[in-house]
Each structure stands twice: as C-alpha cells, then as structure tokens.
C-alpha cells in the first residue's frame, strides 16, 4: 500500500518535470503551453477567489445526475438483455447504433431539444454512460452459474430472491467494471454537453478562459480540475466496489 502511494507520487512528479522540460526546451510562450508552476498558481487563485467553485459544482452535479440516471437505466436494460434472448435480439441493433454515433455530434441537437440548462447536460451524460453499464450488467447477469440457479430453484427462491441473492451478487464484478468506465465517460459527457451550450460549468470556463479572457493558465487549471474530479469519482466507485464485492 505504501509503495504504491510512493509510486503514484513519483509518477506525478515525473509528469510535472516532463511538462516543465517540454515548455523550457520548446520555448513555448505562456499563451500556448504555460509552465506547470503558473498553472498551479492559477489553480490556487481560481479556487481561492471563488471563480472555479460554481463551475465545478455545476459540472459535478451534471456528472453525478447523469451517471446515476444513465447507470440506473443501464442496469435495468442490462438485466432485461441478460435474461431474455428475445429482448437482446430486438434491442441490440439500436443500442449499438446509438453507441456508435459520436456524442459530440449529438450534443448540439440535444442542447436544442432540452435547452441550455442542467437537463440537457444530464441527458447527454446519461446517454454516454448508458451503453457500457448496460453491457456490463448484461454480461454479468449471463455469467450467473447455472448450478447456482438450480440451487435457488431447489430452495424455492422467488424470482426476486433469485435476483437479490444470486443474480446481482454474481453480476457485481462485471457491473462494477462497467461503472468504472461509466463514471469517467460521465465526465466527458458533461463537459462535451457544456460545449454545446451552457450557462456555467467547467467546460464553459475552459471556453471563456480560452476565447474571452485569453487566460491559458486558467484554461489548464480548469482542465486539471476536470481531471481531478474524474479521478476522485473513479476512486469513489472503486471504494464502493471494494465494500460490496468480496470474494
């Protein structure tokens, strides 16, 4: 545990040094690639003077709601797909087609339908999260050992009991694989959704910093905030997984 923490810190340090080296060697001016220390300084001031917080909260809300809604729908859909071959055959083509269409292309249309507020971003994030979680749930449900299902039958388990005591526990490892992927995609979806039109959010701040304020260190600091949120949420999923999935 300790050695992995040291390794993580070392990796981060190496990344920062590499960045600095690129800036110095490449001679990049601040408005193209700012040095790490200026980004860090800007990051600190942006949080301290309260500029970053409202945008971060807005994006975090979009991510969380989108993940929860898209994830819940994905789990239900995945369960149906896993249990019924008929459902799988009917619905799969549409699911795959929806997944293959890039969110970047759909986002402006969705922004038009749902408006520039929270709803549109939540829809976009939920959409992007839906497919991987549905697939992971489907695979998980299908992976339930037939022998265990017969055991359940021999003990007269009701369909609900089969779901709760056999199917869900068996499917959890696969489901959490999908949730890990899903949470990072939710971050992407929220930010991309904001680029299609939003009042506030980290994606909006990136655009403002870049196009109106010409404050590139702020733009990088905002990107760093996005990355940190993604990492934190991912770790949260991993922590929940450790608690729920024990073999």
């Amino acid at each position, binding site marked *: 545990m300790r050695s992995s923490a040291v390794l993580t810190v070392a990796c981060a340090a190496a990344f920062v040094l590499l960045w600095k080296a690129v800036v110095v060697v490449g001679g990049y001016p601040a408005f193209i690639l700012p040095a790490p220390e200026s980004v860090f300084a800007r990051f600190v001031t942006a949080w301290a003077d309260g500029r970053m917080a409202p945008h971060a909260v807005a994006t975090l809300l979009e991510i969380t709601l989108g993940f929860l809604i898209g994830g819940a729908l994905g789990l239900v859909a995945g369960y149906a797909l896993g249990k019924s071959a008929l459902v799988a055959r009917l619905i799969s083509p549409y699911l795959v087609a929806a997944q293959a269409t890039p969110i970047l292309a759909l986002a402006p249309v969705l922004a038009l339908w749902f408006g520039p507020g929270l709803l549109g971003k939540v829809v976009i994030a939920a959409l992007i999260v839906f497919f991987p979680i549905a697939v992971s749930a489907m695979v998980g449900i299908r992976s339930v050992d037939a022998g265990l299902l017969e055991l359940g039958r021999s003990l007269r388990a009701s369909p609900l009991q089969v779901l709760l005591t056999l199917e869900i526990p068996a499917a959890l490892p696969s489901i959490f694989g999908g949730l890990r992927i899903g949470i990072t995609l939710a971050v992407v979806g929220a930010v991309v959704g904001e680029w299609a039109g939003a009042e506030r959010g980290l994606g909006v701040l990136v655009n403002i910093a870049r*196009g109106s304020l*010409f404050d590139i260190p702020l733009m990088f600091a905002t990107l760093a905030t996005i990355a940190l949120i993604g990492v934190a949420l991912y770790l949260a999923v991993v922590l929940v997984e450790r608690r729920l999935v024990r073999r």
Partner: protein
Amino acid sequence: MNRRTDVVASIFLLTALAGACVGQPASATPGRTALTVGLGYIPSVQFAPFYLADQAGYYRDAGLEVTFQNKIDPDLVTLVGQGAIDVGLADGTSLIPAVSQGIPVQYIATIYRDFPSIVFAPAAAGINSAIDLKGRKIGIPGRYGSSWVMLQALLDSAGLRPEDVEIVEYPDFGQGAAVAQGAVDAATGFANNEPVQLQLAGIETTILHVDEIVPLPGPGLISGTRTIESKGDAIRAFVRATLRAMGDIVAVPSKGLDAAIVAVPDLGADRAKQGAVLDATIRAWQGSGTGSGSAALGSINEADWAASLAFMAGLGLVAGPVTVDQLVRADLLPR
C-alpha cells in the same frame, strides 16, 4: 492503474495540444506573398469589403495571395499571435485581455468605428437610455466577451451594477428571439443584426450604444508582432486594398452587396434583408459619434483606446500592465 492512465492521457493531451498549436504557414505562387486572413465569423454580407477587394483584384494587384478563413474561431486571436494566421478581425474587448496575457498581437486598422455590440429593446418597452434598464430582464449569451463588457459599461454609466438588473443567459444565442417573444425586456446583440431583423419584422426597436460612454474600440484588423516584422509590406498592402474596397462600398453600397452575393450565393435569397444589414454595417464603419464622420477609414483613435484600457482594467480584465503602444500601431495604414 487509474492514476497512471490519467497521467498518460494527460501527457497525450498536452502533446496533442502543443502540436496542434504549431500552425502551417501559407505557401504561395512565386512572386506573390501569401496571407492567411481569419474573419472570425461565418460568411456574411458584413465582410463585403474583403469579398469586393478579392473579386476586384485589389489584393492580386498588390502582389498578394489571400486565403480567407470564414468561420467562427474562438482561437483566432491566439492563432494570430502565434503567427499561424497572418491577419485577423478582433475588437478591443478581445485584444486588451489578450495582450495583457502576453499574446503578441497588435491592432493595425479600424474597421468598425462604432462598437457594434449594443443593447436593443422593442420601442414599446420604453428603454431609451441606460437608466431605464434598472430592474428589467436583459438577455445575454453569457457573462463573458464583448457583450458583457459593453453591458457593464452601459450599466456603469447610469450608476447601475449587474445586480440591479435581471440577467438571463442564452448560451445558444437565442436572446434575439427572446426579445421578440417578450421573454426578456431587452438583450445584447449586434447593431447590424438583431435590430435589423426586428425592424424588418415590423417591430420598432430602440438601441443603446456604448460609444459615448466608453469608446470601446470596434472590430478591426489585427496581426502578430512577429508577422508584422517579417511580412510588414504585404500586410500594409492588404490594409490599403481592404480600406479601398470599404471606400467603394461606402460610396456605392450595391457594389458590396453584389460582391457578397457572388462570394456567398445563399445571401442572394433575400437581397432586401442583406441590403439592410449592409447599410447598418456601413453606418457602423463610419461611426455615429460626434466627429467620427470626418475620420479616415481605418484610422485608430489612441485616446479612445486609452479610455477603454482604463475601463477594462477597472473590470479586472487586464492581467498585467499594458500600454496603448503595445495595443495599437498606425504605421501600417495608408498615409
């Protein structure tokens, strides 16, 4: 595993960003100087001077081979500073923050003497001056950019602050429609756009200009300092040719309209509307403020820039010390 993936992804992102920033210089047929010009907006009748200068051969005669980028480009000023684009179109509210952040660009010719970003309202709303905005609903794309600076200047002139009005954001730029529907009392827009459209739809509008309050510099030609060093003569020729076309259009507006329709055939679908937009644009070139009618096309008013610099510094949009000399230069204008 996740952190390491993050690190790799970040390196990837940064490298890609850095790589993308290195632009490609334009190459030309021998004997001609190539110039890339970023207009910063989608094809529109307001770019008539450029279309006319191109079609009438003014650029060719000056030994130039001009390539236009006619699209919305949020990175335009940065690309000009980098040298990836030789000449761009930008206004003072973009240039001042950019220069204060160390981007090496300069304003070399004025195109719009009036600041085109305005506040407009239906005449029935009774908004005739800035003080009338108090307590009203105002639509705006967002709390950033030229319209935000302009709005703050207007409010400030009446002793108001943004908190004294109700700001409604339309990130999809639907504030014009919102005014027409009555969802808001007034909105920010462009002098040659929303009011013209409303007028054509039969709705009388009142317009609040910021020029008398803070003489914010309207859009003009900008270029990177390094580009000016290496291609100064070509850029000077470009400025002259463009201003000549502008003069032609001021004298005979239909020339501009025809040139725009040749360049952008879709505009021909509604000549009347495009003509109205062009007329409003020409008025913005000439300026409606006192004394501006006599100024030569393209000339730069350094006093106005100084006042605007002070105003924007007051809004906290100037990161470091900036002088007017860093912002503008007049030596590329025709004598």
